[in-house]
């Protein structure tokens, strides 16, 4: 029987970052079902510059694919192009995950690949982790098994995702002369992606991650089919280099800890409810889980009360913005198409050609108080994408004053 202090189930960003955040000197094992860390990639690979700054202090990060400075938001026949200097970038998710794995290995964390955890059971003084190879014992586990969130359920957490909180996605990696390497594109037209959006994130060299996510409850046709017709319409000559299906779940589960258990990242449903971006919160929740695990191990106190510290830290850090994003998601999903038309018409008109973040822009918004509710909404959305707390504070003040 192999015994560990902590076993992390799942070797994605959340699990790898959590493992690396535990104080050195403990016996830690990460178990990953795939043969390689970072593969296959089921992700559009966009992150904000803030995420990069918060979590990676080193220079010359090997996983950066492309940076861009413009964003175009489309809705039916309308569109707005906004300058977003130095705010968003594209990573190579495969290298990104490998980078996290290498950092963990340097801290003597063991990573076991090609091993499926199919069950986990709480015992008197440990958690029994059952894999297709052999069983392991740990004083505590960090559950990081991603969107499936299968193992948390085995340990008594309610991880089932409602259809309304699920985005069914399909993505192509395309190459096409019409792709602008400096511009990220979103299309919210409901005829294509009800409750979600179509994206084109430039990878450089006239390539893009081009995909869509549809709210699973509102879905009439499957993303695999709609993306195909969208491509025929807007990128008819694009060469498809790779295709993938994916699912994004949102709306955090009500309790993210249990007996000897912390649950992180997508497994805790911590992706952003509006953008679907989950890398930032995977790192955030992973970081907190590692921090709390360190305290628990040091004090050798595995009580439920100690575990709950993790929940408190995550909520304090994040809950407010997630909650607001959820409200916004609900509001947008309840809007009729007519209301959406109005909302996008006024916001896009206001944003077109603007540079986000200049003081100039701030005064533009301010002078347009009458339309502030709708612009606030779009701004909120853009803000969430960029995770800028300062900006969001301004918006909130404008919205509620």
């Amino acid at each position, binding site marked *: 029987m192999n015994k560990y202090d902590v076993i992390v189930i799942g070797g994605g960003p959340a699990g790898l970052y959590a493992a690396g955040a535990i104080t050195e000197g403990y016996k830690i094992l990460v178990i990953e079902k795939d043969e390689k860390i970072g593969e296959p990639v*089921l992700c559009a690979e966009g992150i904000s510059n803030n995420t990069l700054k918060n979590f990676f202090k080193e220079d010359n990060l090997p996983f950066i694919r492309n940076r861009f400075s413009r964003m175009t938001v489309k809705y039916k026949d309308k569109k707005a192009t906004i300058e977003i200097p130095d705010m968003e970038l594209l990573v190579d998710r495969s290298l990104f995950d490998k980078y996290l794995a290498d950092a963990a290995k340097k801290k003597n964390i063991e990573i076991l690949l090609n091993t499926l955890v199919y069950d986990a059971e709480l015992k008197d003084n440990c958690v029994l982790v059952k894999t297709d190879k052999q069983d392991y014992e740990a004083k505590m586990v960090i559950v990081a098994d991603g969107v499936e969130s299968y193992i948390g359920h085995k340990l008594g957490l309610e991880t089932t995702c409602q259809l309304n909180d699920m985005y069914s996605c399909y993505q192509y990696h395309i190459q096409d002369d019409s792709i602008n390497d400096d511009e990220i594109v979103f299309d919210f037209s409901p005829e294509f992606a009800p409750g979600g959006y179509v994206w084109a994130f430039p990878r450089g060299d006239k390539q893009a991650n081009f995909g869509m996510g549809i709210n699973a409850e509102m879905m009439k046709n499957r993303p695999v089919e709609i993306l195909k017709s969208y491509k025929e319409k807007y990128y008819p000559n694009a060469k498809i280099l790779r295709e993938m299906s994916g699912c994004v779940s949102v709306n955090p589960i009500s309790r993210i800890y249990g007996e000897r258990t912390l649950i992180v990242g997508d497994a805790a449903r911590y992706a952003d409810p509006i953008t679907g971006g989950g890398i930032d919160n995977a790192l955030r929740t992973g970081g907190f889980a590692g921090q709390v695990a360190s305290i628990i191990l040091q004090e050798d106190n595995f009580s439920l009360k100690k575990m709950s510290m993790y929940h408190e830290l995550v909520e304090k850090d994040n809950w407010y913005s997630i909650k607001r994003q959820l409200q916004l998601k609900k509001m947008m999903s309840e809007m009729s198409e007519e209301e959406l038309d109005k909302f996008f018409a006024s916001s896009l008109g206001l944003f077109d050609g603007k540079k986000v973040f200049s003081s100039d822009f701030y005064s533009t918004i301010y002078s347009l108080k009458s339309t502030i509710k709708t612009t606030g909404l779009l701004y909120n959305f853009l803000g969430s994408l960029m995770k800028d707390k300062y900006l969001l504070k301004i918006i909130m003040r404008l919205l509620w004053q």
Partner: protein
Amino acid sequence: MDYIKVDKEKCGLCGGCVAVCPKKVILMHKEHLEFTDGCIKCDRCIKVCPVGALNKNE
């Protein structure tokens, strides 16, 4: 016979069906899905799938 049938050619192993299954009866292996006992025939897994890889076994 399982209630659900998987089209292995289509399935991209994205985990969506596992996430929405209220009984957690779908287990994702490295290269295939396994349906264990306890399905309540709610069809949510069929609904969520981006590629339509799941169908009722008729």
